[in-house]
């Protein structure tokens, strides 16, 4: 864990799960593990992890080989790349997402009037 009063300037490479509650500037790489940016976490870095859960602020590109979750308190500015991107209601996101669906527009099923609280984006469709 990187505590709320800790500032890291540089590259972090970890082979175990990591919780960031402090400030990180640089890069974060956890190829096989989960990264959580806690509510007080402030990250200005490109992120690469198996799963990424964002409850705080991230400026940078986020690559989640399994999934990326932007929580209700999360704020992301950057490009997100992952087979599954989840955005909770209230979560903020500014940037690009690659999506892999293939249905034509006219065949698209209308979404219900009430949006689900959490939605999963699945590239596999």
């Amino acid at each position, binding site marked *: 864990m990187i505590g709320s009063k800790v500032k890291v300037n540089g590259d972090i490479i970890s082979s175990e799960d990591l919780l960031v509650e402090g400030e990180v500037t640089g890069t974060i790489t956890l190829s096989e593990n989960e990264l959580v940016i806690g509510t007080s976490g402030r990250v200005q870095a490109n992120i690469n992890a198996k799963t990424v859960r964002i409850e705080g602020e991230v400026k940078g590109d986020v690559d989640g080989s399994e999934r990326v979750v932007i929580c209700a308190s999360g704020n992301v*500015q950057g490009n997100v790349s992952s087979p599954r*991107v989840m*955005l*909770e*209601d*209230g*979560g*903020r*996101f*500014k*940037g*690009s*997402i*690659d*999506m*892999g*669906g*293939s*249905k*034509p*527009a*006219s*065949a*698209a*099923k*209308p*979404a*219900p*009037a*009430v*949006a*689900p*609280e*959490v*939605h999963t*984006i*699945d590239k596999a*469709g």
Partner: protein
Amino acid sequence: MIGLPGKKSDRNEPPETVTSRLLPVMLDEKRLASLGTLNILDFGRANSGSLEFFNQFSCRLCVLDAADSLLEWSAGLQTRMEEPPSNQQMQLELSGLLSSMGAHRYDLVFFWDTLNHLHEHALCAFAGLMRRYLSADCRGHGFMLHKRGTQPMLRHMGMAGDNLISVHSQTPAVLYPHNRKVVNDALGPDLRIDQGVLHGDGHLEFLLVSDAAKAQGKR
């Protein structure tokens, strides 16, 4: 001024919905199929409904969440009107605000209420900037305040279906209404209002079509 005090819709309440007759035209299946992987530009705020909708397409979605920054910039521009900045200067400033657009050309652009977030003096600069980012066959969709006396609201909207738009929140705000001719003149030759539908709430829903695509359609 932005974000005047007012009622904000409760996040727990289901979002209001608006039925659109123009979105199905914009999202015409045959046309989209011919475009392959789509580049989609969304000026609105990211929400789960829009992501779910856009995920149906093979696309790269760029979310700008631009309303607050454009309204703040337009309010600042109002105070500079004694010596108004040049189009070039405004394009530079807008380019900084909208830098998330990257280096792509977009096939579909969801403007939502963006034109009413821009000071009239900035419309030409905005259109000039957008020209760099639009594909030749681009279509855009949005709304404009139309009826006098309509309460100007900062609305956050998203897709809810092929012909359905959800309004997630709306707050009274100072906006910048423009008539259709002013917008058409500002947009210039690359993008024009092709169709419009007046809604009961005083908003004009519009479909923008690039002139290049229109010319191809008439052949």
